[in-house]
C-alpha cells in the first residue's frame, strides 16, 4: 500500500514537473514571439525616424541655400540705387543744365527710358528691352526739349544730345 502511495507521489511530482516544463516552454515561446513583434515595430519606427531626420536635414540644407541666395538677391536689388547715388555725386547736374541743357535732357530721357524698360522686364514683361519708348517720352517737345523723344526716333544713339537707352 505504501508502495502505491509512493508511486502516486512520484507520478504526481513527475507530472507537476512535466506540466511546469510545458508551461515554461509555451510561456517562453509566447514571450519570444511578442518580443520579436515588438522588435519589428521598433525597427519600423527607427526607419521612419531616420527617414524623417534625413528629410528634415535635406530641407534645412535647402532652406539655408535658398536663404543665402535670397540675401544675395536682396543686396543685388540695392545695387541700382547705390550706383545712382554714386553717379549723382559724381555729376554736377546744375552745371550741366547751365552748360548744355539739350544734352542733359537727352541723357535724362534716355536714362528714364532705360529704367522704365528695365522695370518692365523685372516685373514680368519680357518685351522690356524691345518695347518702344513709353508714351510720355514720345510727346513732341517744346522749347529746349529733346527732339529725339519724338515717335519713331532711334533710341540707340550714343549722341549725348539724344535719348540714350543703352
Amino acid at each position, binding site marked *: 500500500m505504501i508502495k502505491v502511495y509512493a508511486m502516486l507521489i512520484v507520478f504526481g511530482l513527475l507530472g507537476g514537473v512535466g506540466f511546469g516544463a510545458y508551461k515554461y516552454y509555451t510561456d517562453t515561446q509566447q514571450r519570444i514571439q511578442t518580443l520579436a513583434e515588438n522588435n519589428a515595430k521598433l525597427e519600423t519606427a527607427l526607419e521612419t525616424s531616420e527617414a524623417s531626420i534625413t528629410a528634415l536635414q*535635406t530641407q534645412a540644407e535647402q532652406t539655408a541655400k535658398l536663404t543665402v541666395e535670397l540675401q544675395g*538677391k536682396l543686396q543685388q536689388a540695392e545695387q541700382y540705387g547705390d550706383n*545712382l547715388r554714386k553717379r549723382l555725386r559724381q555729376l554736377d547736374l546744375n552745371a550741366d543744365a547751365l552748360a548744355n541743357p539739350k544734352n542733359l535732357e537727352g541723357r535724362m530721357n534716355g536714362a528714364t527710358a532705360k529704367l522704365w524698360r528695365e*522695370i518692365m522686364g*523685372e516685373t514680368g514683361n519680357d518685351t522690356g528691352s524691345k518695347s518702344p519708348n513709353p508714351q510720355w517720352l514720345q510727346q513732341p517737345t517744346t522749347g529746349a526739349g529733346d527732339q529725339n523723344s519724338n515717335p519713331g526716333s532711334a533710341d540707340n544713339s550714343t549722341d549725348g544730345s539724344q535719348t540714350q537707352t543703352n
Partner: protein
Amino acid sequence: MVNKDNLDDFVAEFTTEHGEFAIVALSIDGYENLALNIADLRRYINQQTDIIVYYEESMKPDETAKTD
C-alpha cells in the same frame, strides 16, 4: 531742360503751343530726389519678387524624396 538762357524761348514756344503758360517744374535737387525715390521703389519691387520666389522655392515638395 530749361535754364536762364533758354527760358524766354521756352516760354514763347510753350505759350504758342499750349496757349497758357502753366507748368509743373522740377529743380535739379527735386529731380535727383525723384530719381532716388524711383530707385527705392524699384529696389522694393525686386526684393519683394525675390522674397516671393524664395517662399515658392521653399514650399516646393522635395523632388529627391519623391524618387526615393
